[in-house]
């Protein structure tokens, strides 16, 4: 197996999915928890228009920070997101083909599709599918969307979310994420280690709770106001900001168990209205 660098893996995936008719979209410039939050997935999976897109999406999950001490967990990392709508009959085969394109020997190694019914309570989104395991390493989330923004979908999209670090670990045979080769002469750790340590401290210990509580309220209010003016994209970006602010408060231990569902409900109802307005405007 040729040891592709991180950058080469992304490059190969771009090439592969372009051949499958995907547009390569630029990543979203707002902090998000996953590629699903990108308008190229959230909005585009609504309605009956065909759509195929692929993109890398830097993602943040504050509670997953481990001060750069865990070889597998990070509070910020990269997803490679593919959305294919409608889902073609042979999408699973195409996906396996993409792994072969990365040089993974599917005869020597075992790929396993393990039940995982995906759900994003903040986006009012859910789907059925699997975690894909490569020799027990979870490398992809594979989902047939059933609902987005609380709407039962007219046309089922297939979402394929590659965990880029995991795939690189496998390909490069290095099981510490910080040792991965980003590009010859540069490691993942060179770019991210200090970042992980500092952000873990920030997320767990330093983030200003009062400020974030106020920010959450402000973002929520702004999103609602913008929805009132029919400005879907700006409104949606404030929904995302509110969502990330909530995640930070959660990592900081500032959200009690009983308040959690309420916060999530507030974000979801805004996300739902964004989805409704998007469909109305079309």
């Amino acid at each position, binding site marked *: 197996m040729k040891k592709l660098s991180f950058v080469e893996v992304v490059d190969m995936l771009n090439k592969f999915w372009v051949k499958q008719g995907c547009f390569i979209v630029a990543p979203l410039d707002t902090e998000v928890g996953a590629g699903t939050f990108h308008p190229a997935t959230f909005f585009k999976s609504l309605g009956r228009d065909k759509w195929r897109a692929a993109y890398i999406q830097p993602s943040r999950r504050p509670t997953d920070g481990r001060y750069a001490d865990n*070889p597998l967990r990070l509070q910020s990392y990269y997803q490679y997101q593919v959305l294919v709508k409608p889902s073609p009959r042979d999408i699973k085969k195409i996906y396996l083909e993409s792994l072969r394109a990365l040089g993974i020997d599917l005869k020597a190694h075992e790929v396993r599709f393990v039940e995982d019914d995906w759900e994003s309570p903040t986006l009012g989104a859910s789907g059925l599918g699997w975690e894909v395991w490569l020799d027990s390493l979870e490398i992809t989330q594979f989902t047939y969307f059933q609902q987005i923004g609380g709407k039962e979908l007219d046309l*089922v999209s297939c979402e394929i979310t590659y965990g880029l670090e995991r795939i690189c670990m496998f390909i490069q045979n290095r*099981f510490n994420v910080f040792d991965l080769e980003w590009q010859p002469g540069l490691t993942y750790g060179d770019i991210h280690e200090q970042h992980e340590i500092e952000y873990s401290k920030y997320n767990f210990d330093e983030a200003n709770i009062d400020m974030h509580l106020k920010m959450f309220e402000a973002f929520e209010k702004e999103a609602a106001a913008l929805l009132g003016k029919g400005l879907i994209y700006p409104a949606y970006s404030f929904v995302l900001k509110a969502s990330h602010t909530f995640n930070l408060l959660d990592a900081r231990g500032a959200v009690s168990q009983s308040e959690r569902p309420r916060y999530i409900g507030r974000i979801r109802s805004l996300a739902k209205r964004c989805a409704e307005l998007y469909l109305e405007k079309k």
Partner: protein
Amino acid sequence: MEHRDFLLEINVEELPAGYVRDAAASMKTAFRRGLDSFHVGFNGRILDFGTKNSLVCYIENLPLKQEEVSQEILGPPKRIAFDEKGNPTKQAVGFAKNQGVKTEDLKVRQTPKGEYVVIEKKEKARDTKDILREMTPGIIKGIRFPKTMKWDDSGLRFARPIESVLALFGNEDVDIKIDSVPQKKIRPVAPAKYLKTLGKLIDWDVRKKEIKGLILGVVKGLRADHGVDENLLDEVTFMVTSPDVFAGEFDKKFLDLPGDVLRASMAKHQRVFPVSRNGKLINKFIAVLDGRRNKKLVRKVYENILEAKLKDSLFFFDEDTKRPLSENIFQLKDLIFQKDLGNMFEKIERLKALCGFICDKVGERPLKKDSERAAELSKADLVTHMVGEFPSLQGVMGGEYALKSGENKTVAQAVREHYLPQGMDDPLPETRAGAILALMDKIDNVVGFSGMGAEKISGSFDPFGIRRNALGFVRIVKDKGFRFDCEDLIHKAIELYRDKLNVPGNLKDKVVDYLKDRIEFLMGDVRPLELKRAVWESGCFDICDIFNRIRALASIKDKTYFLEAAKVVERTGNILKGAKKEKIGAVDERLFKEDPERSVWKAYLDSKDKIQGLIDEEQYKDATGEYARAFYRVVHDFFDKVLVNVEDRALRLNRLAIMKAINTLYTERVADLALLPQIVVK
């Protein structure tokens, strides 16, 4: 007659492991019903098989055609259809013509309404193949799954996308049309031959055995012992189709983690099996692979991933043990127990009060302090990182962390085992403190969930696990031999919920019924069937006593003295039944008029203390024998010679009072045997 086999194969993208068995079974049932309703008689078996990627149904020995079914069609009455000479009338000819038969074929049949003209119409027997073709799509669509999905525009729903279907009947394929699903293209072969090509591992029992054998082989090679986790084995059976195994290793430092954490991590993240030697985990694991792989390469990945996951568990463990477990208690105010039933902090307050209450009742005062402390700590692990990651470790982690926090062993063990038993095969709490806390947790659940005014449980509908909790409660009481009146405890549990419950009026009865229902379930078949009800009618609700009593009485059901005792209860009961409105007081010996009155009362005075003594000692067989010996003859004699329902009110009430004394001596504390059917003394 010529017979053929039928095979249906549904190829599907990876099904959730827990779905396959039930889905295949429901398909089997649907075929059996379908074939019956189409009158396709067959004497072979219906077999079901399945893997993560296929559901297979195999039906042996089907006839080529359904049975001929004839149908009678009723025409006009005979008097209208034929004239006096017996010739068919215009009406008869018209009826025959409409039905497409000749007038000669008309028959006359006696019906409840009189004589009518009928014709017998034989329906043409249809080809079994056509019937199979017709009913199979409906059967496939009708397979029930816990969750289903759409994957294309056809609207078809299934657990995962169907890739193709294949149906074979004899050597021919059957054309199955089901929305957008393609048919698997093969050269048609006999179903038996095709089944052979699927391999013996298509049978999940065979596959499971194979995997278990492979694992045990590796275990032997490692000189280890092993209790293969059956649940995990079951799951893995539906994750691989052609199993292979290998052993891997991890750093010994992770053995510092509690064994339950290691097990949970291995099962959840990688579905690998832990290995132990002399009952202690060692730094090895066994993985089951699908198909022949390069084990050397695969193993390395597994080992690295396991260590990364265990490292994360260590992180959780360190975070959780930074402060004593008791510091989590306050956070429980933020944790909802159940929407209408308040938070977890309120729950542990109730548990604490209940533990204190029951320790007094069952004579476990020395355990009072420990069980109350265990109650306080019982839910504190719910807000730890580890239980957040592995919810199945609730209780277990509480016990671990309690020990780490310097709590005593009794307290820690009680916290650890208070969720037991979860299922029918689960072990019960070992310690008495654990059993007490487990009982209080369960009764609080049953009372709370029953008191929310939620829908009544029925059949398999029991969303809050009321039945499971009630069963656990009964099993523990019986196992530990705790003696107390359940009604007192239920009353206390209801009281502790204060104003949170919606149906306080009849709630106690409802809870009592749930417990009784589980006792009956545990006792199984007891003869005579009415015996359980007879026991419910009497005595206090002490679970152990109830088990003893029902067992004792059932064991003497054919003895003459049992039947005699039953007869006494029946006869005295009958006379009292007719006197429900009367105000029966105490027996007044001055009112005795006849000898049998005196002798029956003497019998009562002579035997009362002895019988009550035997009942106090729960010697129910002897008490019944003594009761029969004391009363059978004299009560008979009394009824033969003395009229109870006389005009004189004082005399009547006095005689009823004697009967009542004799009746209740037995029925209030043993069983109301009058409820048994037809008591005949041989």
